C-alpha cells in the first residue's frame, strides 16, 4: 500500500498494466467501476484482483445477481486463481442475490431473499460490509451493476451511493462490474459520475475483436485514455498483448537475426539461408506478450507484404547501415506493407561493420522525421535490439 501524489493511499490490484494506468492501484476506502464493452468479459480481471487481495490477507465479499456463487468459484478454478480455499478459510463471503430469482434457497453467508427489491439488496450489502470489515480489510465485488440497473433502473445507483459511504467508514474497496449495454445517456452518465475511478475494458470495433484496457477516470479526474491491448490467458491472468509487430526491411538487412535475438521462441521459413515466407517470433517483455512477424526482403515476394502487414499495431524497419542504396527500398516496403503511419522504430543495423553509416547519417539519408526513433543495432546484440522493442512499445502505448 502506498500514497500516490502524496494524497490518496492506493492498493495495488496486482495486475501490473492496470496498476500503471491507475498510478499505483485502487483507491483505498473508495469505489471503482470496471466498465466493459458487451464483447469483453470483465469477470476474469475481477477474479484476478480479488485473488491478489485475498493472497495478501484481505477479506472478500462477492455479490452475485446473474450467476451462482458456485459458477464464480468454478471460473476461478479454471483461471488457476482458485477462490474455494479462501471461502473455506473464512476469508471470502458471497452475497447470493441470484438463487431466489429461481425460487431456490442458498447456503451462502449472505442471502438476498427478495432480489427484486433494491432496499432488500441494500440491507444485506450494508450488513455484509459492516460484519466483514471486522475480520479484515474488505475488497467488495458487485457483479453486476448492469443486471441491477436492468431490474431497478436508477434506484440502485442511490443505494450504491450509500454503500460508498459505508466503504469510506470501513476503509473498504468497492469494485462494481458494469457492462455498457447501450443504456440511455442519462443512465450511462449517472453511472460514470458515481465512481471516482473507472477502468474500461474495450473491444475495438473490428470484425475480429481486439480487447484493450484503459482508465478513463482516476481519483475523480478524467484522464486521457492510454489504451493497452490485452490478452486474457486461460491461465495466468491478464497480460498486455501486442498481437502483431511487423519487422520489415530490404533483403539481407538482418531481419531474421533481429527476430531470433528478440524472441523467446521463433521460427523462420527459409531456403538456403534466406527467408522465403516469413519469420515468426514470440516475445515476453515488460509484462507484455508480443508476436513479431518478419517479412521477406526480396521484391519478388512483395505481394505477400500487404497480407503480413494487416492488423499490425506497429513496425520495426530494419536497414543495413552499410547499404544506403537500399534505403529507398526500405521506405517502399513500409508503404507496400500498409504500415506507414503506424508507430515504428528504425533499426540502423550492422553497426559493427567498419563501413557502417552512423545513426545520424542513416537518419539524414533516409530523410526520417524527428518523431521516429532510430537505434543503432547489431542483430546479435540483445541490448541494442531490446532497445528498439522498448521504444516501439512505448510508442504503441502512447498512441
Amino acid at each position, binding site marked *: 500500500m502506498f500514497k500516490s501524489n502524496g494524497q490518496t493511499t492506493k492498493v495495488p490490484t496486482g495486475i501490473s498494466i492496470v496498476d500503471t494506468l491507475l498510478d499505483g492501484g485502487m483507491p483505498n476506502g473508495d469505489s471503482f467501476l470496471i466498465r466493459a464493452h*458487451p464483447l469483453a468479459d470483465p469477470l476474469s480481471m475481477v477474479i484476478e484482483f480479488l485473488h491478489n487481495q485475498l493472497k495478501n490477507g484481505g477479506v472478500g465479499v462477492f455479490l452475485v445477481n446473474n*450467476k451462482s456463487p458456485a459458477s464464480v468459484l468454478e471460473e476461478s478454478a479454471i483461471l488457476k486463481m482458485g477462490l474455494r480455499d479462501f471461502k473455506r478459510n473464512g476469508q471470502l463471503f458471497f452475497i447470493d442475490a441470484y438463487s431466489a*430469482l429461481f425460487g431456490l434457497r442458498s447456503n451462502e453467508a449472505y442471502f438476498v431473499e427478495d432480489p427484486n427489491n433494491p432496499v432488500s439488496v441494500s440491507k444485506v450489502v450494508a450488513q455484509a460490509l459492516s460484519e466483514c470489515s471486522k475480520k479484515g480489510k474488505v475488497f467488495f465485488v458487485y457483479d453486476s451493476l448492469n443486471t441491477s440497473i436492468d431490474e431497478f433502473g436508477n434506484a440502485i445507483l442511490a443505494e450504491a451511493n450509500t454503500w460508498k459511504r459505508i466503504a469510506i467508514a470501513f476503509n473498504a474497496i468497492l469494485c462494481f462490474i458494469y457492462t455498457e*449495454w*447501450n443504456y440511455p445517456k442519462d443512465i450511462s452518465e449517472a453511472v460514470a459520475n458515481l465512481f471516482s475511478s473507472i477502468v474500461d475494458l474495450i473491444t475495438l470495433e473490428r*470484425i*475480429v475483436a481486439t480487447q484493450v484496457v484503459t482508465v478513463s477516470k482516476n481519483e475523480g479526474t478524467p484522464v486521457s485514455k492510454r489504451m493497452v491491448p490485452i490478452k486474457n490467458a486461460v491461465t495466468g491472468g491478464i497480460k498486455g498483448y501486442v498481437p502483431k509487430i511487423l519487422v520489415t526491411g530490404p533483403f539481407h538487412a538482418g531481419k531474421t537475426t533481429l527476430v531470433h535475438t528478440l524472441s523467446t521462441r521463433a521460427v523462420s521459413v527459409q531456403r538456403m539461408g534466406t527467408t522465403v515466407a516469413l519469420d515468426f517470433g514470440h516475445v515476453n517483455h515488460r509484462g507484455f506478450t508480443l508476436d513479431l512477424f518478419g517479412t521477406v526482403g526480396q521484391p519478388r515476394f512483395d505481394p505477400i507484404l500487404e497480407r503480413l502487414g494487416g492488423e499490425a499495431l506497429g513496425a520495426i524497419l530494419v536497414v543495413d547501415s552499410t547499404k544506403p542504396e537500399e534505403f529507398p527500398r526500405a521506405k517502399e516496403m513500409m508503404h507496400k506493407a500498409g504500415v506507414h503511419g503506424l508507430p515504428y522504430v528504425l533499426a540502423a543495423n550492422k553497426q559493427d561493420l567498419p563501413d557502417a553509416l552512423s545513426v545520424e547519417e542513416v537518419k539524414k539519408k533516409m530523410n526520417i522525421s524527428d518523431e521516429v526513433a532510430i537505434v543503432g543495432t547489431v542483430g546479435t546484440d540483445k541490448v541494442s535490439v531490446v532497445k528498439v522493442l522498448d521504444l516501439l512499445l512505448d510508442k504503441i502505448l502512447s498512441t
Partner: protein
Amino acid sequence: MTHELLPSGIDLLDSALNGGFTKPSNFLLIGTPLSAKKEVGLILLNGGLERDEAAIYISTSNTAEEARSHWEDYGFKEQWEEEGRVKFVDCYSKMLSATVSDTPSIRRVPSILDYTKLSVAVNDWCTSYYLQNTPVRLMLDSLSAFLIYSSLQTVMRFLHIFLGQLRKQNALGFFLLEEGAHEIVTFNQLKTFSNGAIRVNEESNMMQLEGYRHGMNIPLPSAVVPKATAEASQVSCTPTK
C-alpha cells in the same frame, strides 16, 4: 457489404424467398408451444451444414447434450460436430450444476441472465468461423426464455448489440419465439430487429412468411410433420388472402 443468397435447405421455402436467405439477416421463428418451430430451425441449420457451413445452437431451456439428442431425430450428423462445424452455447447446464465443464464444441454460460458471457461465447465462435471463411447460421432457442427472467427492454438492449455483431460477421440468425406467451407489443418490438418472421402453424402444417415476401404460405418440411409427407409434396406455395 455483399448480400449473398443462401439456400435455406427447404426447397419450397427457397422458392418463396426467390432463392434463399439474404446474408446477413435474422428471422424470428414464431409458433405456439410444441408447434415444431424448433424443428424447422434445426432443418434450416442442417441446410447450411450440408453446404459446408457452420452452425451455432444457443440453448436456454435444455442442456447442450439434450439439444444435440433432439437434433439427432431431425438429421443431425456426428461428422459435422467432429469437423468442428457445430457448436453449442449452453445457458442452462450451469444453472443445474456449476461444475459441468466445457468441451471443444460446447461453451457453458453461467446462467440465462449472464448476457455478457453469452455474447462473448458466440462472438468467439463466430470470429473463428469468419477467419476460416466459413458461413455460419445461428439458432437461439429461445427468446421467450430470456423474456421470462428479463424485461423486454433488457432483451432489446442485448439484441441491439448482439445482432450488430452477427451482421458484421455476415451470419444468418434464427430466433425462436413462443406465440401466445408474450404481449403484442413485445412481438412488434422484437420484429423491428428482424428482417422477417417465419410463423409455424401446426394445425395447417404450414409456415407463413412475414416481412420479406409477406404472406407466402409454405408447407412444413416432411421431416417435421411425417404424417403430412404425402400432402406436402403435392402442395405448392400459396399467397394468403
